[in-house]
């Protein structure tokens, strides 16, 4: 398997009035082509920063970025602005969190497709654009006539389908999806997820799927990265069955115990006591220390070990998982 996206030792800090505030710390992961990596985290964990950092969308006056982002072996942060512009969407595309606002309200859907193609394919004809747009819309099960509409004329689900179709316009190898179904009703959400899964298989896409919903991601992803306070705590390819909970990072275990179950026997739930740490006051040790039931004295002061690889657990109290063959859900 070839790695389509590699994130290597990524550090991101936001520039604020009172100095740098870390958002991502020492993040490393890689995604092979034809693989979905789910990235799960609660609000403030840095998962949306991750999407923007990987696309190199953070402006230099907004945040400092350190580390490497390799897309098909090419470091995005080494490119000139024009090279970056050409690489975006051809190699790596993105579906935004809020489809409501991702489309320009004064341009028709057709113009969005035309803009995207004209920016990357010099000399493309109007007919070719129209034909490709219709094809793409059909692939996400939309009537090609939708092209003539404006964003405000479409339902939330249709808008999100348009954005997904747009993301496929230049046949990228990597797709970042940042909470692509969050504002939608469950039935619409499920049908869009089914389409994402089908398109991903058909086009051999490497997908980074960012979500706050553990249950949703475990039904979709090959592997799941769990993020807390800007750090990846664990990358797992295990199922999320409660019986296996002990094999996961203490934070992951906490999340699993917190979510009510839809099927199986009814079990009681418990939250994780405490609150996420203040990112401006992080100590040197594990950020989960204050809330961790398994903590050791060393966890407060010893930084989490840097790890890379397909699966890992970053915890002083837990051994690394046994690497198994890659499973598909």
């Amino acid at each position: 398997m070839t790695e389509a996206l590699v994130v290597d030792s990524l550090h991101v800090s936001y520039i604020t009035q009172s100095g740098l505030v870390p958002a991502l710390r020492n993040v490393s992961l890689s995604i092979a082509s034809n693989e979905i990596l789910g990235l799960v985290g609660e609000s403030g964990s840095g998962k949306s920063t991750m999407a923007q950092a990987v696309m190199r969308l953070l402006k230099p006056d907004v945040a400092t970025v350190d580390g490497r982002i390799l897309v098909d072996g090419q470091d995005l942060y080494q490119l000139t602005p024009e090279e970056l512009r050409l690489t975006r969407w051809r190699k790596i595309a993105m579906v935004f969190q809020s489809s409501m606002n991702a489309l320009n309200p004064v341009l028709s859907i057709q113009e969005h497709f035309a803009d995207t193609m004209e920016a990357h394919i010099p000399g493309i004809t109007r007919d070719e654009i129209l034909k490709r747009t219709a094809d793409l819309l059909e692939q996400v099960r939309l009537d090609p006539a939708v092209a003539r509409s404006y964003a405000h004329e479409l339902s939330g689900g249709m808008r999100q389908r348009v954005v997904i179709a747009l993301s496929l316009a230049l046949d990228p190898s990597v797709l970042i999806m940042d909470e692509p179904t969050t504002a939608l009703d469950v039935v619409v959400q499920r049908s869009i997820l089914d389409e994402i899964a089908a398109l991903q298989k058909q086009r051999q896409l490497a997908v980074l799927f960012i979500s706050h919903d553990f249950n949703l991601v475990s039904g979709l992803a090959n592997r799941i990265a769990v993020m807390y306070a800007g750090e990846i705590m664990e990358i797992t390819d295990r199922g999320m069955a409660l019986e296996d909970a002990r094999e996961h990072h203490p934070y992951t275990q906490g999340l699993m115990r917190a979510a009510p179950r839809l099927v199986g026997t009814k079990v009681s739930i418990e939250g994780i006591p405490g609150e996420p740490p203040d990112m401006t006051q992080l100590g040197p040790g594990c950020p989960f220390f204050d809330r961790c039931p398994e903590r050791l004295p060393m966890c407060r002061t010893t930084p989490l070990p840097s790890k890379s690889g397909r699966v890992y657990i970053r915890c002083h109290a837990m051994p690394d998982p046994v690497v198994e063959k890659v499973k598909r859900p």
Partner: protein
Amino acid sequence: MSAKILVSTDHVTVRFPRPGAPDLVASRAVSLHIATQETLGLVGESGSGKTTMGRTLVRLLTPSAGTVWFEGKDVTHIHGSALMRYHRNAQMIFQDPFASLNPFHTVGHHLARPLARLRHLKGHERQEALDELLTLVGLTPSAVFREKYPHELSGGQRQRVAIARALAGGPSFIVADEPVSMLDVSLRAEILTLLESLQERRGLSYLYITHDLASARYLSHRIAVMYGGSLVEIATAEELVQAPAHPYTRLLLAATPGSPHKGPLPETMQGAPDLSADRIGCPFAPRCPSVMDQCSQVMPELKAVSPSHQAACFLNT
């Protein structure tokens, strides 16, 4: 659990007039009841009418037709001081705790007002009741939280303040409208378990409005499912999740994250239900994989599937 009915609706219909179009019927002849110390989950997607029903039950809305009963009394059209007395007994918790709190007022101020208005408490007595409320919802030490402003609280803490405020009048019935949907998973569990323990300690009845079947199953004794303004199914929580009788409930279950369902969803098309007053027949008919001729003509009545389970579908007759 006592079987005594605390609050109920009888064929409640809520219409909203629309210029140049037939009225929008947000809820259509909905009858349901909640017993003392019972939680009824009310599940549906946006536009199903679940929030309208919640607001009608605490009389933030007045139904266009039908009756709302509370402790055997008709409260459908009460107003003025009678409505204020009703609000000591029936309160509401909203989805967005931040929007429901005034940023310029402290936590203490938010709680002092209903204590004064609904329970006429003053001075020392009010202070004690306030501290007791904060302790009850887990905001301790209460002396610290009393002085805080909403922006100094986390999302979970704000929702606790909103719960404390709803409890201030000493209610027996609370409508909780998506109280955890804006919270993170780890905080969700804390609020759900808080609601659970408050029910036991205060003998509360809940209408728990949510789009999430998993949390509805967790918190509720029975679950009602609404679609397009109509109540389509109601059953004990376990029976509804394990043996759904209405095709819409089956679709909702199949689509909920964590469901073992594989393959295409059991629906024929996607779309929002028609809420206009001139619609006839079952609102789910256009999407229903088991649709029959009569479905687009007549709305089926709720019929018993089992003693603790009713569904409004011709498949069950």
